[in-house]
């Protein structure tokens, strides 16, 4: 595996008696889009939570451009250029849409201009509205714009596509590809395979807290284990 | 002196568990810190004054009457205040403010009705003569209070574990969303829990004059802090943890009184702060800090 911009090594996490992650390695290089897929409960969001500093890892390391983030709080990780969106969007509901972006603290790589970002996610007409009044799809886009406003080098995108119309999906896909073209590394968690297929260079398939498969989506679709995990193991022949 | 402090500490501890358990039950079910809990206890103390010292009812009658009356009064209070809160944007903060307002209202009404002068009830109303317990001699009223406390705590346990309503109550405490999903009537169960909380406060109030000395309408806030300290030590939302919290609190208080009496007043406050900071989930409990 090539030297990654973001590297997770041997990340483990246990919730009580439940082993959510059992030593996961994952890396993304600058300009690359990695799809992170797997059934519900396989540990994808837990991995993002640990990488972004929402949860503490039990074991393993998280490195951004060679620097360990393991003991840094979330806002420091954001400042160094690691950011994420949330599966259930988390805007600041009492702030206006524009303010939602203005509060973002530009990190080491300079932040992006709020007005341009609002244009990019097509929220400019709502700039003066309270973010709590937006639809959940709009809130997802606002989440994305806010993460970008910190000027990340790596962005973790957690189920952005759910709920978007095909037209919106196409625009978001174009947008994410453009970000990668600018040198951003992206890890995209998604259930929608068409979306994954459209934007990712390679995928990592997780199951039960472990990496099951690494490669392209096409290869994954032919992998017996992966198919079993997604469709359930076939009945043994009678 | 040490043996005496330990023995009376346990006796008072059981009583403090009774003081705290109603607040803990309400918190466990509704996730609301009922700051009017101490005022319910204060009103219970005034009821005891009227029932025992003025009407000369026998103590068991006062206990039953107090519980039933406060239980029934608690139901409409619940329906008037809580369901509306659940729809607010910040229910936890608003509930704190709301019940703080209720606390102030009750205290003011009590002051207008009963006056601000200190009252007390002679301990002999609960029986004459000292009692020998745990190798020590102590006032009969203390032992009476501890025995009733133990009985009430046992009844709470029976309610929660041996009745249909109680099991539904525990289901709500453990997993609110799931309880709704399987068709449990949250408001009915919560209203009953709120009523029981008020009833338990009334019983604690009946013994307050004997355990805490004199009482005034201003007793509410200090009792809130004591209750909160007791249930935080045990575990918020875990009614039986309250017994552990009460006993630890009682024993510590009696040890302070024996060896550091002039600083004993500081105890509830310091215990509360220390437990919140060092072990915020209580000795038996779950997470309360911010993410």
């Amino acid at each position, binding site marked *: 595996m090539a030297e990654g911009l973001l590297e997770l090594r041997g990340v483990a996490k246990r919730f009580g008696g439940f082993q959510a992650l059992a030593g996961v390695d994952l890396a993304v290089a600058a300009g690359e889009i990695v799809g992170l897929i797997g059934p519900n409960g396989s540990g994808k969001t837990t991995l993002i939570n640990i990488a972004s500093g929402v949860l503490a890892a039990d074991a393993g390391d998280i490195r951004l451009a060679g620097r360990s983030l393991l003991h840094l709080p979330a806002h420091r990780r954001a400042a160094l250029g690691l950011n*994420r969106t949330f599966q259930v969007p988390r805007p600041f509901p009492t*702030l206006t849409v524009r303010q939602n972006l203005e509060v973002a603290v530009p990190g080491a790589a300079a932040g992006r201009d709020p007005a341009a970002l609002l244009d990019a996610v097509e929220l400019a007409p709502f700039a003066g509205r309270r973010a709590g009044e937006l639809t959940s799809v709009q809130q997802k886009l606002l989440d994305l714009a806010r993460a970008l406003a910190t000027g990340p080098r790596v962005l973790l995108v957690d189920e952005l596509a759910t709920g978007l119309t095909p037209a919106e999906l196409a625009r978001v896909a174009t947008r994410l590809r453009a970000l990668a073209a600018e040198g951003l590394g992206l890890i995209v968690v998604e259930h929608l395979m068409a979306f994954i297929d459209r934007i990712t260079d390679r995928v990592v398939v997780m199951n039960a807290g472990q990496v099951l498969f690494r490669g392209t989506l096409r290869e994954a679709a032919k992998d017996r284990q992966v198919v079993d995990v997604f469709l359930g193991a076939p009945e043994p022949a009678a | 002196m040490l043996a005496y402090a330990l023995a009376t500490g346990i006796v008072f501890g059981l009583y403090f568990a009774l003081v705290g358990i109603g607040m803990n039950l309400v918190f466990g079910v509704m996730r609301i810190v009922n700051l009017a809990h101490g005022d319910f206890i204060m009103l219970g103390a005034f009821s005891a004054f009227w029932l025992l010292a003025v009407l000369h009812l026998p103590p068991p009658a006062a206990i039953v009457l107090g519980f039933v009356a406060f239980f029934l009064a608690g139901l409409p209070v619940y329906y008037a205040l809580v369901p509306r809160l659940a729809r607010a944007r910040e229910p936890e903060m608003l509930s*704190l403010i709301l019940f703080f307002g209720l606390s*102030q209202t009750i205290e003011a009404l009590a002051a207008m009705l009963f006056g601000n002068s200190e009252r007390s009830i002679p301990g002999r109303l609960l029986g004459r003569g000292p009692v020998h317990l745990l190798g020590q001699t102590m006032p009969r009223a203390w032992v009476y209070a501890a025995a009733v406390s133990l009985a009430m705590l046992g009844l709470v346990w029976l309610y929660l574990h041996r009745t249909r309503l109680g099991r539904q109550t525990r289901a709500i405490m453990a997993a609110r969303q799931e309880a709704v999903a399987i068709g449990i009537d949250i408001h009915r169960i919560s209203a009953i829990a709120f009523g029981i909380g008020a009833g338990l406060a009334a019983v604690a109030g009946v013994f307050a004059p004997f355990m805490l000395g004199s009482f005034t309408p201003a007793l509410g*806030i200090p009792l809130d802090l004591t209750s909160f300290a007791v249930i935080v030590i045990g575990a918020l939302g875990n009614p039986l943890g309250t017994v552990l919290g009460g006993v630890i609190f009682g024993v510590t208080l009696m040890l302070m009184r024996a060896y550091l009496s002039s600083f004993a007043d500081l105890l509830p406050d310091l215990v509360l702060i220390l437990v919140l900071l060092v072990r*915020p989930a209580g000795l038996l409990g779950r997470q309360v800090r911010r993410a």
Partner: protein
Amino acid sequence: MWRDLGLVVLPLLAVLAVLPAVYDNGALLLNFVVFLVLAQGLNLTYGFSGYLPFGYVGFFGAGAYGFAMSVTLAGAPPLLGVLAGGGASLLVGLLLTPLLRLQGAYFGLASLAAAEALLHLIGNPNLQPVTGGPYGVKLQAGYAPLLTYALALAILALTMLLVAWLRHARFGLRLLAARDDALAAAMAGIDIVRGRLVIWLASALAAGLIGAVFAWRTATFFPDAVFDLNFSIFAIVFTLFGGAGTLAGPVFGVLLLYGLYNAIGLSAPQYFQLAYGVLIMLLALFFPEGLAGIARRIADG
């Protein structure tokens, strides 16, 4: 920002500055300013970081005693004593910073417990040589009604400037974001811990400074008087009534409610307690954003 200053801060200060010339109850005027500072100080922490300290009076009392002890024990001149009072409240605020790790109700009650503990400590008979214990404080700092009033106005001006600045500066906006959603704020790169600490200490300082001025003016007081829970309650009610997080809200709260309180008279405190208790409940149930929320609803149609 300039609009806030021109419409709220300057007119209020101007009126308060000329009032002593036409109204001779100086003690009452000072009390108004005291409550304006306390309401705005509480507004800082509750309005901008969401922490509601029921024990806010602890800072006021710490300021009063910081003043009293520096004047009586160290022989400090009163002006230095006021700074010592502010220092004392800052110290208490620093000691209590671990409380900021706690959530809403836990924080509120823990801060109340802290204020009560401070009262019990200062009023302890064993500490009589240092604090005066339960017998309180008798100060000979010199009766200076105009100077103390001017100082109180200066503290009010600073506190309100801070609120006005927060309402427009990015720092204030970031605090509001953290109040809305702490986790999302962290992801937006906001250092929540530092922001909350700064606002908490500023809030403590405001109460401490005004507590010191109050002590100077009052000269003789018992510990119960400066740690009276009613200071917290009033500050909370005035702020909630007007609207937390706004600049004019707490001002209206103090002027209307404290004005009413004094207009009707002080003979029966329980009537006000009843009125405030009911008012708090109504606010929590129907108008959680106070007068400011009502005004916004009208403005929005």
